[in-house]
């Protein structure tokens, strides 16, 4: 407990954990798209940037309250997601992946060329609104929301599309609509994450959201385990903290990071917690903790 307090009181840990939480929200969105619906997205960071810029601009120019801006950023990102998804969700697999990757790069170049976003110089002086508690609450909300989504009629339809799109369609699932919806919800979370990012670092520029960041988010999801909420949490935790923990190996750390990615995939191609969902985890925990709990109850 004291350990936990230590963490919260140490601004360095707070900063690291805040960033982790921010990435986690985006990664959860990506997991909905890729892990649960089975659609590739290699441009998720672009939606983070859309959320980041829109909410930051609202804060700077319109002075509306932070939470309103955050929500607006998420909605704008979701709207852009729909615009992209409608034409491109007909593409499958790698082709969809490449299209989203291309979209991501186009968004980045657009931000570089736009006046209002400060071009390549970026936006500075964004007030610091994001704190650890806000991020923590939003992470919990996202996990809770995602859990509800995947364990519903809606979520089952997404899983059906992932498993077999043709069979899903013959079961009455309008695959295109569901894919678009899933994509836009994922983008919404990315937008929220971007808004938090902007108001945490107080300075954003387009190069923060290149394809490298998109692939980083994809790493979190895939290495954690596609279609698993605890997997995404674990994957994001391990991989976003890895560079911090690997600081002691200094310049070799990215070498180790790269090798680690290969090794994780080769030895566990479905990710650390591939296919394990939150319900399973609760059930398993309950099963494990029950007997000792009963014993201690007696004592």
């Amino acid at each position, binding site marked *: 407990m004291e350990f936990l307090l230590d963490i919260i009181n140490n601004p360095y840990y707070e900063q690291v954990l805040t960033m982790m939480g921010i990435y986690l929200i985006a990664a959860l969105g990506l997991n909905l798209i890729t892990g649960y619906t089975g659609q590739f997205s290699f441009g998720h960071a672009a939606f983070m940037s859309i959320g980041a810029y829109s909410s930051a601009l609202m804060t700077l120019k319109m002075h509306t309250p932070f939470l309103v801006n955050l929500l607006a950023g998420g909605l704008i990102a979701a709207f852009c997601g729909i615009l992209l998804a409608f034409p491109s969700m007909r593409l499958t697999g790698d082709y969809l992946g490449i299209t989203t990757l291309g979209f991501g790069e186009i968004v980045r170049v657009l931000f570089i060329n736009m006046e209002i976003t400060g*071009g*390549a*110089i*970026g936006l500075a002086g964004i007030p610091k609104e994001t704190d650890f508690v806000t991020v923590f609450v939003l992470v919990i909300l996202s996990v809770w929301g995602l859990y509800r989504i995947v364990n519903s009629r809606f979520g089952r339809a997404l899983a059906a599309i992932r498993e077999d799109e043709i069979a899903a369609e013959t079961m009455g699932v309008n695959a295109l609509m569901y894919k678009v919806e899933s994509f836009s919800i994922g983008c919404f979370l990315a937008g929220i994450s971007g808004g938090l990012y902007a108001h945490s670092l*107080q300075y954003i520029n387009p190069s923060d959201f290149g394809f490298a960041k998109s692939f980083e988010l994809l790493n979190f999801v895939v290495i954690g385990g596609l279609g698993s909420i605890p997997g995404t949490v674990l994957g994001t935790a391990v991989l976003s903290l890895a560079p911090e923990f690997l600081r002691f190996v200094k310049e070799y750390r990215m070498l180790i990071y790269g090798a680690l990615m290969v090794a994780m995939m080769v030895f566990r191609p479905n990710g650390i917690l591939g296919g394990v969902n939150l319900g399973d985890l609760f059930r*398993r925990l309950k099963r494990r903790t029950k007997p000792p709990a009963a014993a201690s109850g007696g004592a």
Partner: protein
Amino acid sequence: MKFKKSIPMIILTVLISAAMVLAGCGGQKDGGKDAAKTAETIKIGFLGGKTGNHAHYGIETLKGIQMAVEDINKAGGLLGKKVEIVEGDHGSNSSEAAAVTQKLITQKVAAVIGDPTTGITKLAAPICQSNKVVLMSAGAVGSGVVEIGNFIFRDTLLDAVAAPAVTRYLAEDLKWKKVALVTTTGLAYSESLTKIFKDALAKYNIEIVTEASIMEKDTNFSAQVTNLSKKQFDGVVFTGYYTEGALFMKEMRKQGLKQVMVGGDGLLGNELMGLGEKAVEGSMVYTGFAVDLNNATGITKEFIEKYKAKNNGALPDMFAAQGYDAVMLVADAIKAANSADPSVFREKLAQTKDWKGVTGTISMDANREPVKSPVYLLEVKDGKFAVKTVIPIK
């Protein structure tokens, strides 16, 4: 089966908690024992990338910082205490930079020296400001840096000071009438320098006959140069970095264009000649610091000699010198305030006037912006930078 599946989970969990505990111990050491240790040393944080895209700037800045700290400690330290460097390497990665800055602050540094680039400085500045720690950037030249707060400083020659001085020289001494202006779009440094040059060129009646824009990491400029070749001009004003600058000049020579380029300290680096070879002969670069072996005197000369001795005869560049001056500026402020508390010595730092460093004379104006003199204009001669002229700022 169930067990087998959970093995990697268990291993990972153990790994993570082990790492957490390790990191936690580190933190404890810094936090706990350091309270006692603070009494003995004054900590200076270095913020920069030792790896990644901007590694060169980071590494050179750190060399300068190390030399400065060594000199201070050799002379008996600061307020009777030894000075110690805490290194924060962010690998040129902006989302890590915030965490690294936080970490430096938790390690109770009196001042953060760095980052040499504008982008990351803008990221680190709000964190330092809100924690009331002095940030002295040894390289940030872009706009909107010191405006972030009264704890934010820099010791660089500003383009807003230098570029007009150089433009005057181009117009009055070299008699340039027409130029081509090349900007690296997507590069904050280049875009703001272009703005400054545009104003200065207009002021001294030099016409911009054509503008071209390139991107960072581009290697093929054939299209832009082919466009330039249609126009008549005296020279190229190039506001980007040396990599693109060198390749751009190569392409110009390839297409038979003979004009030279002039640009800011983004072009400064021995790689300019390494990449550009004969094509960059005659190129002009202004800087706040240059090794002018024939005319260097006093501490500047000392600094150059020391650097040479430490680096197998290599000569220091601007970043090393600015790193050195940044530490010295802070140290002098601490001495003057007789306190290593940032809230106290920041006042003295803001009042810096006609301070002599290895890079020249520095005064802080009312906005804590450094006014430096002189501007060195270098020229590439036989594959080396040579001082062409030294332009004093009044």
